[in-house]
């Protein structure tokens, strides 16, 4: 859920997702009305929803909290993709490539 961009929400959100390799469904809450209805007062915020539409948790943005809340949502014994490597060991080449490309053309070009 992309929220509070201010201007050019579509372009800004799209650019952000391309830069950081964000896949999956992204919806635009441009004026923040849905965020307000949910009681979201900051970003990032995660809202965990059970199969009957009940909210199980709100927040949980630190890696440990995120994993714990995800396990609770999925139930004990659920398989979760293993956590990423420590940040100083991660392969950042795709991000570096995206940033290098932007540095040449300018972040606003083609946004």
């Amino acid at each position, binding site marked *: 859920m992309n929220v509070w961009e201010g201007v050019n929400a579509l372009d800004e959100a799209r650019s952000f997702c391309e830069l950081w390799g964000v896949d999956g*469904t992204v919806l635009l809450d441009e004026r923040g009305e849905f965020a307000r209805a949910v009681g979201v007062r900051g*970003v990032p915020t995660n809202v*965990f929803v059970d*199969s009957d539409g009940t909210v199980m948790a709100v927040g949980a943005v630190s890696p440990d909290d995120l994993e714990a809340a995800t396990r609770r949502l999925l139930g004990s014994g659920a398989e979760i993709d293993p956590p990423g490597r420590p940040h100083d060991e991660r392969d950042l080449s795709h*991000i570096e490539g995206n940033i290098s490309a932007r540095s040449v053309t300018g972040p606003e070009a083609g946004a």
Partner: protein
Amino acid sequence: MLEDDSPTALDAQAGGQTEWSFEYGASCRLDLETGSSDPAIRVRGEVAVGLDPEGVVVDGTTNRAYVACSRSGSVAVVDLEKLERIGEIAVGQEPIDIVLDPVSRRAFTADARSNQVSVIDLDVGEVTATIPVGAYPAGLAIDVERRRLYCGDTMGSTLSIVDVDRLERLGTVEAELGAGAVDVDRARNVAYCVNFVTGSVTVADLEAMEAVDRIVVGEGPCAAVVVPDRDEVFVVNSLAGTIARIGLDDHRVREELPVPNAPVGITAAPSGDRIYVANRGDGSMSVLGCDGLEWARVAVGAAPGGVIVHPEDPRIVLVANAGTGSITVVEDDLTGPPASRVEAIEHPLVGRPLPEFALPDLHTGALRHQVEWAEKKYILNFFASW
């Protein structure tokens, strides 16, 4: 008019003066009158400034705040006596950070999408010069005595060094990917530039203009403040939800302090006994002792970031709220740690149905309805690109 089963009404029925509501949103029990967890710290007011405000500074001479509104491409001028916006100064594209030189009476903005620093004459109220720096400048620090400005060039992975009087870049120091926020140990003439992407801090010898050390910190470091009285620098790790407390003498991380929710901004009280942390994740500001104990939490606007202490009145703290497009002015009269801990509470929506939504898909433009995810377990991640 709230419905009877609204989270606010339900919580109010629990009795007492304290109440949590969506209007406040901070993840702890608050006093409605002060907007905080402790009556000794209170919100004085909130002022609408512009789109996505990030950096904020105060001109102590005129008692005005200058707020870099990144998506407005301008700096808002706020009269802190009247608590109202009184002007706007156009700068470059996406001004993220701002610092002030009281000697020349100029302010400087890091205009991220213009790859420049704008120079604002505070008395004239307009930009009088621009200084080319590295790619996507996002963080600034100033050494008024040495007449130097330091700029973290996020996409250039460099730290630019600028002469404040000649208004020209003197050189750069190689940093790392995501180089942004920076602060200076003025006693040693050493800069600490945080590198968001690599999760590290580049330590730069400013006399030699070269990197001399590298410190691994938590994920997503995005702010730093040097506290001279403690001989330490505090680095905010936004994605890890911690603050790294680092010694200036040995560059070692002494402790990782947990903080509430996606901390993004930080500043220190002149007394050196407390730090102020803007929690972008839940619309609050935490007052922490330097040992990490949370003294109080204050509800501010949505997605706060930049935070600064008033140079003439250290009780006054200003917070820039990117989500709300405002600044919050807080008065801190805390004398020390609280008698009781800040009481964290669960979000009132937990256990209740998610409100319905119908929102456009970023990729297809089609309206997507909640019913598409019926009978599925899922996570909604609210994010902004800034």
